[in-house]
């Protein structure tokens, strides 16, 4: 089977690797590009653990063909922190919004998409934004509180 070259912008840097037919973006990011931040949960779009941003909008990497992101901009949790943690990451740490941590990268990216578009979301808007992301141990309340807190801090920095 022929390998296909894919070039994309991952967390601001141009990256290229080969993909094979039928490979999803999650496998491509983890196996070909070494970005282990998006997680494999269900493989069927039910859990949101693989949520990444594609041209700024949240998508499920496990249901996206890797070859279809050629030339596009992908953001993952691995790219969130600069010199300091992203306000969302800092709020998750501060508010103990990650227990086992498996859902966290997906939660962070779903929340980032929200506050990038809507810097002061209501609680209902936060709930809606993470409604496709399952958490089975931390509990949703600390996560919602952390996103709300981060949204406040984002505004203070601006």
């Amino acid at each position, binding site marked *: *089977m022929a390998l296909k070259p894919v070039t994309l912008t991952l967390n601001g840097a141009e990256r290229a690797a080969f993909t*094979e*037919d*039928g*490979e*999803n973006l999650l496998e491509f990011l983890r196996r070909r590009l070494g970005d282990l931040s998006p997680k494999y949960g269900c*493989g*069927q*779009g039910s859990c*949101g653990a693989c*949520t990444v941003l*594609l041209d700024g*909008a*949240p*998508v*499920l990497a*496990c*249901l*996206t*063909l890797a*070859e*279809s992101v050629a030339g596009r901009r992908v953001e993952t949790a691995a790219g969130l922190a600069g010199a300091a943690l992203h306000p969302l990451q800092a709020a998750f740490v501060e508010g103990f919004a990650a227990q086992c941590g498996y859902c966290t990268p997906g939660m962070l990216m*779903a929340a980032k*998409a929200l506050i990038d578009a809507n810097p002061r979301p209501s609680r209902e808007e936060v*709930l*809606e*934004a*993470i*409604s*496709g*992301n399952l958490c089975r141990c931390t509990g949703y309340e600390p996560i919602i509180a952390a996103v709300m807190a981060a949204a406040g801090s984002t505004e203070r920095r601006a």
Partner: protein
Amino acid sequence: MTVTVERAATAEEAAAAMARGAQVVGGGTIVMRRVNAGDQRLGRLVVLADPALRRIGAGSEGVSLGALVTMSEVARAREADFLAPVARQVGGPAIRNMATVGGNLFARRTYGDFAVALLALGARVILAREGAREIGEFLRGRERSGLVLAVEVPRPREARAFGFLKVTRVHPAAAAVLSVAAHLPREGGRIRGARIAFGGMGPQPLRAPGAERALEGQPLDAGAIGRAATGCTEGLEPPTDALASAWYRREVAGVHLRRLLEGMV
């Protein structure tokens, strides 16, 4: 991987590939599940990449939605404002950024809520090779269908003439126990052309002839609503699955239909 993937820059290329046995991929939310599960029945995939299928067009009678229009795009489109509340109830935000109008027509229960609304509204499905089909007829033969290009959805004459309700055990987003849509145009206070559609009450979205008969020609009052609720499961054989039993669905279908209709008075 057992599959091969090609891209179709035009709908005609995709239709030709389909005729040779390829499986069409739109947003990926249905087919990629099968790819990830290693479904051996999948051989060739053809990715629909025709920008013409992303078009949303407003006409005097309603709106035309290209097969590749996503649920997020429907939710934002002014031309499709009457469908926005339905599109917003499909999946979570990431699914809505991927899932398409065309794909929803093929979603297995208990997914496919958007198609339930389209069935109540009497949409027409435009196919690449077979022309236009009434949506009920299309859904009955969807396993053998050719390539879908678009759906044409008539706009309800007034906002209260159309209603949709998705019933889930978890809020705000989860697969539906059942969903129900109603289109009740009224002339001189009486319903003319009642259409009630259920999702999750059979193998595909289905109309509820018992409920439609109870409403046709009547004012939308407590008596008609009660009779529609009582008779709505006539001819329907709801499934038992992980979300609910057939018995439960039969018991609650009328309750939810009643709640929907009471909000449309």
